[in-house]
């Protein structure tokens, strides 16, 4: 009997090195090609090689925004995978396992199970390494996915055209497909109906890839960085592309060198950037202040990971918000932007460059481990709609006896109503000045008078206020849910996925709930946030950290109880955890006469 579903969660578990990630990624691509929306999540083992890996694909007819809570199918490559994950199978779910490696007990609660002799099948085609591709073939059949599309994906991803490897992979795919057809059931147990599938109307992409495309789209051609998980693949992406478009990628000796190089390049007029994770950002704090003081545009991507210290490089957290907003000796204005999804990584990267160039400040782009490595389907990028913001340059003029147009009486740090001072780039005659990290006068000459320091402090802070208007114009807000909410959620970053699903579920259950995700976090769009929360009874702030960093920034600015919802275990929220808190809060908020205890204390939720 075939199950018709429009939303399935498949988890694949096994030993690192068995090609689990490839299995998952290729399967996700096949599903996407078949018109499904996919959303993947994976774990990375602590071991450099070996260790247990899990890859999960959620595939659905409609857009999906979180990983999904329970499994419809588990593909267990070995005993450990079975032990780690089998308990998550839904009643009625299906266990698929490598019968050459394990013999699971007879299933309970209606779970079906199919053994695949993956080792034997791979051996039968003399391609021992190919057992994961055999498994993909089996999945394609089990899910009734179009075989020719599967073939196409394998051709694109797994070998050069006409090469031996590709031939073997295609053979492995067929072997798995046929095995299910012949030994398990001619009819696929699951059928997932896709959208009206037109080839290529979705991108299958990770957050770091979307971000890197954003970098190129924004016009950036200078990258300096130091490798660090989970940011390294941004560097590697740009290393492959930049040379083709006249750009420069330098692998620096450390994070301080990386940021210093980017600052230097920006001084000459380049749009410049670096990318790192928390430990690297921690090392950049001094130079961040330097970019702020010298008013040098630069973009710093921080793909957050769990800490503190080296922490858990392959696990997720949203713990760097305060470091991003406040990190600096004394007070160094900067802008902080946070994308909320894989797709949004593209658009917010462009916004980050635009804000850096416009306000001549460092901009920190806060991504996180979860959305950076996750591959999912997103709508095509709206390249045509991209708006680029130029840097304000001082305009040389003719005359004054000079041969070429030149700047006269140029003052680099001249105070202006907006706080933005026109910049002169090396090469511009008459525009000579020294970018200065000491407090300085309008020309850049060191100056420590109380008046100068006070005026400049105000100038530097006034400047970034302009970003609030841009955030509105460029729609750097995601608002979803009810139009007249009673309970609200205000969040940032990648928690938006599970929040979206939880809000939807709450609305379906009759609750008036809405969520606001500002993508500009510093300066904080207070007005917009206050407007959103004006009529609310309570605001829930979900964060993947312990202290409730964002919640604490909001509290002094809101007149409504702020409920901290914190998860600090290195794994993302699932929609249920959020939904549960919405329900509790909703009951509390709508129950008449109930004593309103102070609810703003952090309530830990693992």
């Amino acid at each position, binding site marked *: 009997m075939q199950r018709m579903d429009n939303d399935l969660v498949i988890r694949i578990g096994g030993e690192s090195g068995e090609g689990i990630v490839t299995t998952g990624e290729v399967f996700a691509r096949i599903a996407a090609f078949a018109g499904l929306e996919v959303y993947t999540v994976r774990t990375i083992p602590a071991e450099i090689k070996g260790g247990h890996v899990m890859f999960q694909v959620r595939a659905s007819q409609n857009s999906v925004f979180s990983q999904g809570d329970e499994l419809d199918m588990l593909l267990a490559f070995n005993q450990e995978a079975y032990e780690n994950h089998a308990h998550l199978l839904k009643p009625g779910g299906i266990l698929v396992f490598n019968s050459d490696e394990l013999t699971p007990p007879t299933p309970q609660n209606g779970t079906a199970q199919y053994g695949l002799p993956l080792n034997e099948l791979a051996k039968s085609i003399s391609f021992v390494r190919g057992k994961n591709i055999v498994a993909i073939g089996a999945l394609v059949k089990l899910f009734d996915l179009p075989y020719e599309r599967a073939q196409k994906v394998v051709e694109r991803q797994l070998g050069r055209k006409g090469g031996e490897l590709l031939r073997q992979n295609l053979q492995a795919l067929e072997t798995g497909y046929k095995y299910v057809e012949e030994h398990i059931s001619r009819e696929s147990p699951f059928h997932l109906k896709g959208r009206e599938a037109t080839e290529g109307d979705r991108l299958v992409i990770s957050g770091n890839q979307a971000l890197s495309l954003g970098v190129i789209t924004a016009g950036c051609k200078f990258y300096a960085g130091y490798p660090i998980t989970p940011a390294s693949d941004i560097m590697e992406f740009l290393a492959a592309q930049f040379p083709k478009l006249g750009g420069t990628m330098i692998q620096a000796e450390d994070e301080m*060198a990386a940021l210093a190089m980017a600052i230097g390049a920006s001084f000459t007029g380049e749009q410049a950037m670096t990318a790192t994770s928390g430990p690297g950002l921690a090392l950049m704090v001094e130079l961040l202040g330097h970019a702020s003081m010298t008013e040098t545009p630069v973009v710093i991507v921080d793909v957050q990971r769990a800490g503190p210290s080296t922490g858990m490089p392959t696990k997720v957290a949203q713990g760097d918000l305060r470091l991003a907003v406040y990190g600096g000796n004394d007070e160094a204005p900067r802008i902080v932007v946070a994308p909320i999804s894989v797709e949004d990584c593209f658009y917010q990267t462009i916004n980050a460059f635009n804000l850096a160039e416009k306000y001549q400040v460092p901009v920190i782009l806060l991504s996180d481990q979860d959305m950076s490595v996750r591959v999912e389907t997103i709508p095509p990028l709206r390249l045509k709609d991209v708006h680029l913001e130029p840097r304000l340059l001082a305009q040389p003029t003719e005359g004054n006896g000079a041969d070429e147009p030149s700047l006269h009486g140029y003052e680099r740090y001249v105070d202006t109503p907006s706080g933005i001072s026109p910049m002169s780039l090396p090469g511009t005659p008459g525009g000579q000045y020294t970018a200065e990290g000491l407090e300085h006068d309008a020309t850049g000459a060191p100056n420590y008078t109380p008046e100068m320091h006070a005026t400049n402090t105000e100038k530097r802070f006034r400047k970034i206020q302009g970003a609030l208007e841009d955030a509105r114009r460029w729609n750097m807000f995601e608002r979803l849910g009810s139009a007249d909410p009673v309970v609200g959620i205000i969040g940032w970053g990648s928690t938006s996925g599970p929040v979206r699903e939880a809000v939807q579920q709450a609305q379906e259950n009759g609750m008036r709930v809405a969520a606001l995700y500002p993508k500009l976090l510093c300066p904080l769009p207070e007005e917009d946030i206050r407007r959103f929360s004006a009529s609310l009874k309570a605001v829930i702030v979900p964060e993947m950290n312990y202290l409730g960093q964002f919640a604490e920034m909001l509290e002094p600015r809101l007149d409504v109880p702020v409920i901290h919802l914190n998860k600090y275990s290195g794994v993302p929220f699932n929609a249920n955890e959020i939904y549960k808190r919405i329900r509790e809060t909703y009951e509390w908020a709508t129950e008449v006469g109930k004593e309103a205890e102070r609810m703003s204390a952090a309530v830990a939720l693992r």
Partner: protein
Amino acid sequence: MSIETAVLHEDKKLAAAEYKSAVKPIWCPGCGDFGVLASFYNALSELRIDPARAVVASGIGCSGRFPAFVEAYGFHGVHGRVLPLATGIKMGNPDLVVCAVGGDGDAFSIGAGHLPHAARRNVDITYIVMDNEIYGLTKGQPSPTSPLGMERKASPYGSIESPINPILMTLAYDASFVARGFSSRPKEVTELIKQGITHKGFAFIQIYSPCVTFYDTYKHFREVTAPLPANHDPTDKLAAIRLAMSEESLYLGVFYKKERPALDELVTSKRQIAGDSFSLEKLVNSYRS
């Protein structure tokens, strides 16, 4: 000479004094850095460098104030990061002449980690270290080049750290131009700076530049320095190393010089390999389902 993108129009030349900016040096009267600055003006003038196409970057220290005193573009960076800063400037716009300047603490203490990398990358910049063998700006602590046993407030019983040998070190880093001068010999220093600027690649120039206030070494350096032997072959690395290790004299002059591709040239060559067939749309499409 690979600096043609930054020289003045054929018929033009500026006097040394025209490279002086409006900012008055804050150095103590007699500070060695004045000598280096004067030589720097002369070098720019003699090379006919266009002030609008030259950048002087620095770290923090008395010597770090240098850029503001030069009529050129300047960048007063943070302590110890002048080399990556200057690398970014050069790679941002390879047509510029880029000089990095700073003190011995900035270069060899907090900045020590960047020197081997600037050298191995062969970034086309000239790095002038004003070595006074002391931390001037912070009022006289021993630096990595201070002699063992130096008594200062931070080392009242004598310092316990042996000095490094900057010339030997940069030779070991395979810097493609290594030289040493003494600020009291301005003509020589001018010449070294000129050679450093015209050298295509990373040029390291250590200049003894005494700190009259916290460690007056004028007399000392007059006594112990000597020109490199006339027959020294600056392409002979081992000879350069032997001379750098000499216990008789602290030699002045060009220890070593060798041509190899500079970082900007290498980046350009990789662009050629990569080709210029880039299309954003094609790249985006490669992610289509």
